[in-house]
């Protein structure tokens, strides 16, 4: 199957890459510039969405600096380090997810947060955007990119366990993004299309069984509400009506920064977090929304480029995985705010207010940079 990715080549590539790790600080200048643009734009919008609160802005700026630090740091580690630590990181994430299920903090009906003493509270599911690509990349690499039937079952288990835990929190949005992310990784690895067809059949068969026998009534009720906001007009329905109104009333060029009535009069819920693009739409209009989406598309393109120019299969798989999952967050968040997808409660990466998402996203960028751009590791 994945022989198209390479397989053990007899040709030695190492002569292409010289230099030694540790002598140069490596990062991709294009990605960094795009990221900084996004962060800067995000801070300006946040300042408005937070009701022009300097303290809130300062908080976020500190988190973003921390995130940039993580990016730098993560990008300097060896590919071999990630490879070696992938199972440990995965196991750690799984443990944290179990911890969330047992003593996580509930907020608005779902249990996503972990509040450990001495640490700011955080969402362990955010780590999956790093640990899941790593473990999938690790597994495929250990199988020498030749996956057999058993390997698919193993992958289903490896991916299914954390995704299932996330799903039960419930965090349907993240679970969906992770599943599609992993499927995309396999697609990009060249897995034969018939396996995807098989996967679809499996989903088609198992879905009714899970719906009827695994889910409880409240699961079913929540999922039905997700697709029928009218069932819950004061919460999900209200959110979507108000966010569409905010975006639509912005028009071509918006009402002007700080002038959004929907957000500043509290009609728009979660204006500084999940619904931040509605604030952008209302205050800055169509033009800046499109600019923002283009910026995300450019980041996606750059990360894909870096992944495809990786020197090793592991880097390619991990890099594309991180890219696809990042992009999935963007798509699902924006589609949700624009009323194309149910409201699932996801942040807009690098722009929404909050620490977990921004820091893990930038750390993931660092990992992607590391595994895709460090060539030295090819020399054993």
């Amino acid at each position: 199957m994945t022989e198209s990715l390479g397989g053990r080549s007899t040709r030695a590539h190492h002569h292409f890459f010289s230099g030694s790790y540790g002598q140069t600080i490596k990062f991709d200048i294009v990605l960094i510039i795009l990221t900084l643009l996004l962060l800067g734009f995000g801070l300006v919008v946040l300042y408005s969405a937070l009701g022009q609160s300097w303290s809130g802005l300062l908080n976020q700026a500190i988190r973003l600096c921390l995130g940039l630090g993580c990016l730098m740091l993560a990008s300097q580690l060896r590919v071999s380090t990630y490879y070696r630590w992938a199972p440990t990181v995965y196991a750690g994430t799984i443990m944290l997810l179990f911890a969330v299920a047992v003593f996580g903090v509930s907020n608005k009906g779902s249990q996503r947060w972990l509040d450990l003493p001495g640490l700011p509270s955080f969402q362990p599911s955010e780590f999956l955007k790093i640990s899941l690509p790593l473990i999938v990349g690790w597994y495929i690499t250990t199988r020498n990119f030749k996956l057999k039937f058993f390997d698919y079952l193993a992958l289903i288990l490896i991916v299914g366990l954390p995704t299932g835990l996330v799903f039960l929190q419930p965090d349907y949005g993240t679970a969906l993004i992770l599943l599609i992310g992993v499927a995309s990784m396999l697609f990009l690895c060249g897995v034969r299309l018939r396996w995807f067809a098989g996967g679809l059949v499996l989903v088609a068969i198992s879905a009714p069984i899970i719906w009827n026998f695994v889910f409880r009534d409240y699961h079913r009720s929540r999922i039905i509400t997700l697709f029928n906001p009218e069932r819950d007009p004061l919460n999900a329905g209200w959110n979507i009506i108000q966010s569409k109104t905010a975006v639509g009333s912005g028009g071509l060029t918006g009402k002007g920064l700080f002038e959004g009535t929907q957000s500043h009069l509290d009609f728009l819920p979660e204006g500084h977090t999940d619904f931040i693009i509605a604030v952008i739409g209302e205050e800055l209009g169509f033009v800046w929304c499109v600019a923002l989406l283009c910026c995300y598309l450019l980041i996606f393109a750059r990360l894909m480029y870096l992944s495809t120019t990786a020197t090793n299969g592991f880097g390619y798989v991990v890099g594309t995985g991180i890219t696809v999952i990042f992009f999935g967050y963007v798509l699902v968040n924006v589609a949700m705010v624009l009323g194309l997808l149910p409201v699932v409660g996801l942040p807009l990466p690098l722009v929404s207010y909050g620490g977990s998402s921004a820091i893990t996203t930038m750390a993931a960028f660092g990992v992607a940079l590391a595994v895709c751009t460090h060539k030295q590791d090819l020399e054993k």
Partner: protein
Amino acid sequence: MSTKRAYDPVPLTLSKTIVYRASAAAVVASLLIFLLVARLYQLQIVEHERYATQALENRLTTQTIPPPRGLIYDRNGNNLASNRIVPSLAVIKENVDNIDTLVANVRALVEFSAAEESSFRKRLKNAQGDEKVIIKRHLNEEQLAIEAVNRHRFGNILVITEILREYPYKALASHVVGSVRQITIEDLRQLDTVRYRGSKFVGRRGVENYYEDILHGEIGLRQVEVNASGRVMSEISVDPATRGQTITLHLDIELQRVADEALGDRRGAVVAIDPKSGGILALVSKPSYDPNVFVTGLEGNEYDRLSARADAPLFNRATQGKYPPGSTIKPLLGMAGLAAGVIDWELEFDDPRGEFQLPGSDYVYRDWNWRKSGIGGQGHVDLFRAIYRSSNIYFFHLGAVLDIDTFASFLGQWGYGRNTTLDILDADPGILPNNTWKKNSTGEWWYPGDNMNFVIGQGFTLVTPLQLATVATIFANRGKWVRPRLLLSSEQPVELDQDFPPVQGVFGHEWERMIEALTAVVHRGHKGYLQNGLAWAHIGMDISYQMAGKSGTAQVVAIPQGEEYDEELLPEDKRKHALFFGFAPVHDPVIAVATVVENGGGGSEFAAPVVRQVIDSYLADIVANTDD
């Protein structure tokens, strides 16, 4: 590296499949972004107008500003109805989770009776979700302080200020001024919903009701910016409310008090009219009630309690109480006879025994002072004497020659059987019978016997104290009409209807002669029993001015043939009503007064003194003011 866990790099070969698939991913990603851009285009460009409107509607709310109600004054500038700002406890219905807890919390703050509680629960049940429901009105300083200290404990209990109508004279003027009450759902069906948006009260009795239109004022509008929870963030524009007009009544509240005290604890009514203007100087109906209880409506069963009372304090006896006119009808009938030409001032009837029989009938009609002993005849009686001695026999003779329809059409000119008031709510027209009326209401034509009852003011004829006072006014004005009215002035003039033409068919000297006879009722004395005016003994002996009047005594139950009326033997509510009307000074009248004292007894003895007290007070006031 030889361990399996160690990194064993597999070089990346960009096979055709990989390139193909990576390109596919890029295309899909671009398409998805394009989809989002298309959606943005739809929302922000195509449907922009719609969402912009919606955002505007979200944020802008028009609030109504209820106008302050116009004030009501009496002729001397005494305030009869004012507006007072009172602090009250309230709760927004949506914020009530548990009524029992709320009630317990209220009890911890203020005294809260069971009646208040049940009223509150009822109103809470009927309220809209975002409506403020009053828990308790009229908090005093101490209660406000207690609330302020405990505010943090009971977050959903609010202190709000309300503008409430207040009637400083309480029960004294209630039958004139009336009262407002809270607008009910039924009211809203009839009221102009735009004009009354935001108004809580509507006039429902008396002047408050009749002049509701000008007292209410015009609502103001305030456009405000609200946030999602409906809290007002800023004011965009204000169109202020126009307060209702201040109006002044002819009423003289001090004279009203005199009339009220003259009636004392007895049931009845007093109406005093200025014969020059028709303005009502006093209008008392007793028992009365405190109109302030209707304003708040908190004491929900207070209305039921009042309306269940046997003495009917809510009933306005002055304008709606109907009584047989008794002998007060006699001067009018005399005028009717004169106008018809069937009698003149010289004509005399002989009355040896105080009895009268219609030709061909055995039935004996008796004078009011008839005795079984057979004495009580008044001798030769002319019209003048028939008035000041109130001879039934004279009028039986008149009734034998003049038919009911002639009487009725003449009495109609005096306001009998009509509501002649200009601005008095629901004034009763009373009953003025005639041939057709009797056929329609009883199925039988008018009998000669009916005429006998009619001429002594018994039987079918019924008048209100207000109509009696109107008759007094017409006498005072020598036949000229001024219709009774309450409104003296308002900020913008209110056009009242025209007065009626003067009473027809009676000449000027006849008016004077009749007024002389009415003056004799009060003043003719010291000439022996049958020569004295009937009211002289009770009010005329020490009177210092010239007053004309006529008493009447209305039987409530029929006295069987041959029986004497014995007051002591009858239960209180079957006793006669005492009536009297009068005016003074005779030659230039400034006041006309009528009274009915229910089950009070003889009119001269019990009603005349009430009228005199009112006139005394009014004339003394005028004298005092002229001296200044």
